[in-house]
């Protein structure tokens, strides 16, 4: 009868392959994700919790963390808003070349980030196509924090578009019509009927764009200017620590970034769970 204890597990799903897939999920998550992260945290924890806090409070580290996380947050926000618009246009309207525009959205995914960084720096440098117009106005984009922002919006956009697109496609037109026939204004329909079910998707896109932006190195490094306290991102500081053969310092900054990112993503997930409850079906 000992086998009976297996039964609930076996009968939980009508789909075959539960054992294999779960086993693989755990094995690969363990080997590919948890093992490297565990090694990272293990190396960093060598200096103790107080040591980690001390590193986080070093003025230069604190400045780099602030630069990385604040610009990533704003960039992810802008990418989400703009992505929502792009997704809406691509899903709800039909126009010539729509498929091509749809494919273009994915390009920031495919491009090596260093290429993106060099292209953006070439465009926004004082002698570049765009920079040449901004420079006389006294606007400097390349080699300032604004350059970091541009690069992060660029790489975050596909996340924002792709996460809301399926949700927009799912919206039933009858709902809008019902809202209109019940006398709601067009803004009210957008605000109370269309947007709420999209919110979880927007939040997911925001979270993905944010997470990607925080860890981004290749594209930012070419356009940031990399001045300490001004435009130095935390990933660059990690590379600098490695150049000093300070492996512990590098892993400590990485661990701090990991902790902040994890808390932020967890918070976003909680908001998402709340919005699902609040707005129902999605």
């Amino acid at each position: 009868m000992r086998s009976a204890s297996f039964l609930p597990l076996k009968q939980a799903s009508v789909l075959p392959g539960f054992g294999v897939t779960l086993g693989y999920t755990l094995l690969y998550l363990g080997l590919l994700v948890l093992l490297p992260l565990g090694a990272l945290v293990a190396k960093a924890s060598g200096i103790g919790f107080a040591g980690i806090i001390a590193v986080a409070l070093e003025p230069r580290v604190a400045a780099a963390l602030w630069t990385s996380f604040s610009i990533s947050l704003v960039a992810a926000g802008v990418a989400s808003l703009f992505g929502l618009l792009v997704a809406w246009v691509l899903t709800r309207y039909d126009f010539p070349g729509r498929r091509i525009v749809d494919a273009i959205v994915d390009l920031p995914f495919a491009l090596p980030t260093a290429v993106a960084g060099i292209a953006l720096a070439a465009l926004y440098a004082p002698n570049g196509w765009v920079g040449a117009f901004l420079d006389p106005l006294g606007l400097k984009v390349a080699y300032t924090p604004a350059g970091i922002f541009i690069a992060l919006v660029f790489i975050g956009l596909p996340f924002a578009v792709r996460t809301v697109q399926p949700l927009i496609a799912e919206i039933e037109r009858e709902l809008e019509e019902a809202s209109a026939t019940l006398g709601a204004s067009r803004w009210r329909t957008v605000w109370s009927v269309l947007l709420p079910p999209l919110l979880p998707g927007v939040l997911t896109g925001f979270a993905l764009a944010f997470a990607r932006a925080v860890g981004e190195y290749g594209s930012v490094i070419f356009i940031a200017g990399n001045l300490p306290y001004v435009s130095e991102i935390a990933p660059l500081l990690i590379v600098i620590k490695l150049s000093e053969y300070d492996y512990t310092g590098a892993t400590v900054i990485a661990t701090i970034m990991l902790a902040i990112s994890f808390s932020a993503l967890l918070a976003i997930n909680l908001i998402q769970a709340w919005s699902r409850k609040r707005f129902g079906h999605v």
Partner: protein
Amino acid sequence: MQGRSLNVAEEYLHSSFRTVLSAIGLIGLSVASLLILSGAAAAQTQLLNVSYDPTRELYREVNQAFADEWKARTGETVNVRASHGGSGAQARTVIDGIDADVVTLGIPSDIDAIAKATKKIPADWRSRLPNNSLPYTSTVVFLVRKGNPKGIKDWDDLVKPGIQVITPNPKTSAGGRWNFLAAWGYSHSRDGNADKAKDFVSALYKNVPVLDTGARGSTVTFAQRGLGDVLPAWENEAFLVLDEFGRDKFEIVVPSLSILAEPPVALVDGNVDAKGTRKVAEAYLKFLYSDKAQAIFAKHHYRPSKAEAAKPEDLAVLPNLKLFTIESLQGSWDDIQKNNFDSGGLFDQISKR
């Protein structure tokens, strides 16, 4: 009821057996693909020279010349591969285990770091080869825009307000470290005072709008992006820019005094003994001091240690200027690295807000 549950149990055991089998299969597949990706070893003698960034063109030619000579002398085929990148990052790959036979890096402290971290190179490595293990040297000169619109003549002009200096981050770049030490040494030689020298480099780095991670990055920022008024650069890199971008766009300004930049070479004993390549690797390093290699160094605008081996017209291009060694001012390389570039060192102090 009893019968059914037995049946299910049997089925479970059966399926878990299958699970294990397919698991083994999948793991096998993953391992096999990893092995294929990592590649099979080659049959002929392979040497790996881990070098720094601006030597790509140089070692392509040197390696070919060595392979030809080795073939003529012993009949054996040797293939010298070179890997390039920021000097510090390259040293780190050797520390992390890349099987370099020889290292040819941008600054002695990077080889010291390998010696200390891995013990694969003995601590006295500099005395093992002629001329302090320097087959060639170089220096730092200024690259300015054609016509020198800001009238830059010497190091003093680099600290003037309103001048933009493009130089890489000394933390990540050997070229950046030579620039930093050159500026410090210039002020120290003139003022004879470490405090004044600190103020001097502090003022200079206030004029830096972009800190690239490598010397090549700074060159691109200056030459292609059009940023900045002056680029203190490796002498060979400055000549390369003239050749690549045209002498009608840039010109070289030679300061009154500069640093003797010392990019050293070393055998990685731990690796060559493990691979059995010691004989070829030692011959390769010896070859760097031969007349043939020395002539190639001069052709690529490095300063050969044996000037008589170089073509006179190659030497004539190199400007005549007074050079100082940083060791004569700051002592051992251990101290130079620690006091200037390690965490809390001079560079960290002057980049404080």
